[in-house]
């Protein structure tokens, strides 16, 4: 048995060897670049503040040492890829290396100053939340082979309904209405994609345009005239989880958040278990990979797709409410400003897996938070480049340079029952 296992690990497909080589070379370039640009010219220490106030739990590191370490990690991964190949963990390896690089970069930007790490991580989780909801919605739909480009529109309608119903009735009803609104949008997508077999990408684009037009129109016609009675839901307070919120650093970052963050973790857990450990999940994935085979086995392909797409829409709608009920406290036109597309990117970067999607959303959230911090530090580094990072990473991922992401086999294809 071991011989067979060894043979399968040793013999790698030529394409895999080629992309591993490309990755290796890119890592080596990054290693040289990191050393040359960050490590050589940096002096002084950076103080990462881990506690609430300065002086409490400070972590002082040499900026130069951190940059050198980051360069070494890149170099090590480059060597690994060139010789053996990291294989299926290449995305994880990349994420870790980029995480260390982010620290090194922070050390470089804030050399000689202090930086509240807790504040930054807290900001990352907050920025990641709507992205993660969007990505999870995408996973839900694409696992049954319905492409969901309309995440953005579902987030936006969720945000709108959350604000309106949250103001008229109350926050709990607001949350329910947001999920429902996302579900209705998704039902529209499902009917177009499944029943009328409209091209799914076009259907998704339509959902986005329609949602933008609808919410902007209603906002201009109704909300603006009387925002006190329609558009002032207030923000949901953070809930301190007993005991857990007392953990240093992590407690503040993970367990003093509002209900959206907890819901996000719950949905990730439920989806991971549901998709990979239950009969429902097996059926859903079968529909996504080979609908005809699933149909032959007696699985109702259409019903499975409808249910998953609508559930996915409800997740996105709930995530949309984060914008109004979770952070801003009022609806503005086009307030999601492309977060749904970053969610789509996170879904791809996370390889169509709930945990992967969450991890990718956290990485993108970190980039967002980092950009805010850099603007405050006034380091002279243009924040636009960090805002581009999620999109660049996604292009690199779909181009197959970093662990080719494979979508469900039937993704995007309508099913015609014979």
């Amino acid at each position, binding site marked *: 048995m071991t011989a067979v296992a060894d043979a399968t690990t040793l013999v790698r497909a030529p394409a895999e060897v080629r992309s591993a080589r490309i990755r290796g070379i890119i890592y080596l370039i990054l290693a040289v670049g990191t050393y040359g640009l960050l490590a050589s010219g940096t002096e002084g220490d950076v103080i990462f503040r881990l506690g609430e106030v300065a002086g409490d739990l400070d972590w002082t590191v040499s900026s130069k040492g951190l940059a050198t370490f980051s360069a070494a990690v890149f170099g090590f991964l480059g060597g690994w890829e060139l010789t053996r190949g990291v294989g299926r963990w290449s995305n994880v390896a990349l994420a870790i290396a980029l995480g260390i690089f982010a620290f090194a970069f922070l050390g470089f930007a804030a050399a000689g100053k202090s930086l509240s790490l807790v504040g930054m991580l807290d900001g990352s989780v907050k920025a990641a939340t709507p992205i993660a909801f969007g990505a999870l919605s995408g996973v839900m739909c694409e696992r049954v*082979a319905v*492409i969901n*480009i309309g995440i953005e529109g579902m987030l936006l309608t969720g945000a709108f309904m959350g604000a309106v119903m949250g103001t008229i009735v109350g926050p709990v009803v607001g949350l329910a209405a947001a999920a429902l609104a996302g579900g209705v949008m998704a039902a529209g997508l499902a009917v*177009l994609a499944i029943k*009328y*077999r*409209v*091209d*799914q*990408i*076009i*259907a998704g*684009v*339509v959902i*986005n*345009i*329609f949602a*933008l*037009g*609808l919410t*902007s*129109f*209603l906002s*201009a*016609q*109704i909300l603006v005239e009387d925002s006190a009675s329609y558009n002032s839901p207030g923000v949901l307070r953070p809930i301190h989880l007993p005991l857990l919120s007392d953990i240093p650093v992590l407690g503040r970052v993970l367990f003093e958040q509002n209900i959206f963050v907890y819901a996000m973790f719950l949905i990730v857990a439920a989806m991971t278990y549901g998709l990979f450990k239950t009969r429902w999940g097996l059926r859903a994935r079968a529909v996504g990979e080979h609908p005809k085979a699933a149909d032959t086995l007696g699985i109702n392909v259409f019903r499975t797709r409808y249910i998953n797409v609508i559930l996915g829409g409800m997740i996105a709608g709930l995530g949309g409410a984060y914008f109004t009920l979770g952070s801003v406290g009022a609806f503005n036109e086009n307030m999601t400003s*492309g977060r749904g*597309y970053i969610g*789509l*990117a996170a879904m*791809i970067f996370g390889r169509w897996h709930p945990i992967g999607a969450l991890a990718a959303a956290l990485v993108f959230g970190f980039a967002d938070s980092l950009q805010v911090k850099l603007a405050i530090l006034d380091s002279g580094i*243009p924040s*636009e*480049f960090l*805002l*581009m990072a999620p*999109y*660049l990473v*996604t*292009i690199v991922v*779909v*181009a*197959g*340079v970093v662990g080719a992401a*494979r*979508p469900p*086999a*039937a*993704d*995007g*294809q*309508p099913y015609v029952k014979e």
Partner: protein
Amino acid sequence: MTKEPEVVGEEPKGRKPPSWLERVAPRNVDWRSLILIPSLAVLSALVVGAVFIVFTEGLDAILPAYRALFSGAFVGWSSISETLLVATPLILAGLAVALGFRAGLFNIGAEGQMTIGGLVAVIAGFSFEGLPAMVHIPLALLAGFVGGALWGFIPGLLRAKTGAHEVITTIMLNFIAFRSLDYILKLPGIQAEGRFDPISQPVQSSARLPRILGWLPMEGADGLRLHVGFLVALAMAWVVHWLLFKTTWGFEFRAVGANPHAAKYGGMSVVVAIVLVMTLSGALAGMAGGNETLGVLGRASPGFTAAIGFDAIALALLGRSHPGGVVLAAILFGALRAGGRTMQVQSEVGIDLIVIIQALIIIFIAAPELVRAIYRVRGGKETGQLTRGWST
């Protein structure tokens, strides 16, 4: 090499459903698909739009709103000028998406290509001083063409070489283009002097696209904003038509769209065709951007593309990916936009209603079975399938 045999043989009627290419870019379709369905789609969208007016402003608001919409779009020279002015970039961007559709590529990135093209055109427009307009205008438009071409070349190359789906890469490149615009507009030498917000220097007057309706015998004809870009857009529609249907290249593009495997087997280079189509598509969108910056705005600022690149998808669908159809569809959308502004001013209905109507038009066009079901139109069934999912 002017006449080429058709890509797909004549389908026997009423048997196999036509391929997705037939669906989005049909050759011989009966008048029902070509005229009746789009007309009914527009009508249905206006009816549903009226429902939204009833919900927000009441029954009495429909007639004044739509009357203002119509008069703002068609009544009087200034309305017509505005309609065609709005239609100009829509024609070019719609052609960009339609060209991609013909080759089986979904260029969702016209917005980003417009952004880069418009920006490069502006830079060319203010950098050269003292050039005669006869040289400067073509130069600046060409710069927009090249900028957009570059932004279309990247996803084309990625698609051809690595199989990365152009829908994902163009969406991502859109956002990269927006962020790049924010960054570049703040660079010294580009940013307008004395400004702290991201906005470019104004284009030299020698690069501004001249207005073409000044000769009209009426009061205030000089104020009519329709510029020479409209004629350029019409010319480009003719060029795209010629390229697609009268040249070997066009034949290869359509062959690759119809069946890449067969095209490859027939000795065509699928890689070259994909890269070329995406580059040309990006270039057309880039010209649309240049048209906006050189013809209307006179400078570049964040978001100057105003979602025209997304409307372009609707236009290509509505115009059945045919250059002539795209021109007509663009004029219709131009009329909706220009009329929408008048509607916003003269009635209580906001211009965002137009966005809803446009989305509804795409829904009805993309789901012809829906329109058939509502109006009981008979005729060849079509499927809405157009792209082939993420995997290649």
